[in-house]
């Protein structure tokens, strides 16, 4: 197995709801090698989204350590975390989360506004990213003029445009029909295999999980035994 990209060491996560402290994870350990493609499955409310948020530096653990590329990131402050996300992580959401008033190309360009690239270099990158997802001819379309599958492909282009190592997908096909879902999942597979992206994908669909290299089952705050063996 290659070098781990992310390691979780005894990560604890609790949410406080009113005066109550609700535990999500208790001392969770996990290691994700570079160029892995992991599917995370589990019942609703088991903490799949929370896990993605911890991996992506959107949320902070209540205890334990998260190491990304040999550097601890659980103790970074807000602005360092923002920079971490901009440089290392691409997010793909269930509902695409495109900006409705921007064109496909403008949406894809957004992460590049956080880089030092000038307008020309940015538009080159946008062009390449749209080519990869096969939407070069839709660059000037608004999200409302695109189908669900096309919108998710724009979102994928946006996630890869700044060339992050890690892609985090939360139910990326949850809102799509089976055929379109298959296209999106094949695309993720290609990104993993050809571009070497490490992918963590949350899904409740076993069909979708089959596209991943391995599947982890999250339940009651732990990964179940059979995954640890796998």
């Amino acid at each position: 197995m290659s070098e781990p990209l992310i390691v979780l060491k005894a990560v604890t996560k609790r949410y406080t709801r009113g005066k109550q402290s609700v535990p999500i994870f208790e001392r969770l350990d996990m290691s994700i090698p570079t160029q892995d493609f992991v599917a995370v499955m589990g019942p609703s409310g088991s903490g799949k989204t929370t896990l993605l948020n911890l991996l992506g530096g959107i949320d902070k653990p209540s205890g334990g350590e998260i190491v990304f590329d040999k550097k601890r990131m659980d103790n970074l402050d807000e602005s360092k975390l923002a920079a971490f996300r901009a440089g290392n992580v691409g997010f793909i959401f269930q509902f695409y989360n495109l900006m409705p008033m921007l064109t496909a190309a403008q949406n894809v360009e957004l992460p590049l506004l956080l880089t030092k690239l000038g307008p020309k270099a940015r538009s080159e990158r946008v062009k390449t990213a749209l080519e990869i997802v096969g939407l070069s001819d839709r660059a000037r379309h608004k999200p409302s003029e695109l189908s669900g599958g096309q919108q998710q492909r724009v979102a994928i282009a946006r996630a890869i445009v700044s060339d992050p190592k890690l892609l985090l997908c939360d139910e990326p096909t949850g809102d799509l029909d089976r055929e379109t879902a298959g296209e999106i999942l094949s695309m993720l597979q290609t990104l993993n295999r050809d571009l070497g992206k490490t992918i963590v994908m949350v899904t409740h669909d076993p069909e979708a999980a089959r596209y991943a290299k391995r599947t982890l089952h999250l339940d009651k705050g732990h990964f179940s035994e059979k995954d640890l063996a796998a």
Partner: protein
Amino acid sequence: MGRTLTQIAAVTAMNLRSLPQRKWTSLATVVAIALVTGVLLAFLAMANGFQATVAGTGSNDVVIALRKGSESEINSTLMREQVLLLQEAPGLAKAADGKPLLSPELYVIVDGIKKSSGLKANLPLRGLGPLANEVRQGIRIVSGRMFQPGTNELVVGRSVSKQFRGFELGAKMRLASQNWVVVGEFDAGGNVFESEIWADVSVLQGLYQRGSTVQTVRARMNDPASLEKIRAFSEADPRLKLDIKAEKEFYSGQSRNIGDLILYLGWPLAIAMSFGALAGALNTMFASVDARAREIATLRAIGFRGTPAFIGTMIESIILAGIGGVVGSLGTYLLFDGISAATLGSNFTQVVFSLKLSWSLVLQGLILSLVIGFAGGVFPAWRAARMPLLAAFKEQ
């Protein structure tokens, strides 16, 4: 820095482009702020116009004598003896025949009916001495002629014939149980005199049973410096304990109180209304932030800082308020600038003046609107900057 600006520009452009989705609440805010600005500017223009009119009245070459402590013409009385003594005062300009240019005057109130409202209002009726025309300068008969001394003839100021019923040239009316006729109309350069009716002082003395008393004396001086000599002359004679003022100073003193009153009425009213507009602005901007919650959170997840979200929201709020301010100023300009208004002068008579907008007043209105925009944006902007990133993962 350059990158931060690019981000702010991108986020702001996104906010503004999504404005049409919130057009009604945004429009309501613009209208509320426009109203506040408009009301403020109307009051400021009123105070400004009033002051310009009253302060533009009177001359530094004319001295006015009133009974000591009387403050206004209506409260003053002067005996015939005092008028005669004043003729001996030093520094007075003389006519060709050597008589001092001096006009004993009466000042009484008559009723007029306003054309605009149909309501009664007070009009000053001034009785002028025979030399009044030489004492006052800058008075021009624009139609008809001057009244004939000893007759029941009137001349009226332009504002009077414009604003009140039945004062046209040739109009007949009853005043103090007598028939009168308007024989002329005069222009006084837009000052307070244009709100007056003039007649012969001796005719009015008889009608109002004033015997030989008058209310004030106006006299032309050789130069403004003569004022001190006249005052000393009056102080030295126990029969002449009078208030001696330059006419200009007399009117500007009168204008100050009323002008201030309008001003101090306008600002509190505008500020009270501002709170209403502020509530509207806050509401609109919170709604805007909530509507954009998912977009803001998504940008944050991508790696944008809170700053662009904060500044973008502030800019949206300030732009809406700025539009309101401009619309309000423009509205006031189109609706009110230059129109005539009338207010009670110090003598409880009507002073007719024009509302006068100026750039410095417009600036005050715009500043007020931007303050509302700023205050209405800062809390919603703070919410935008602190938007929980988890909002990106929620279903809309």
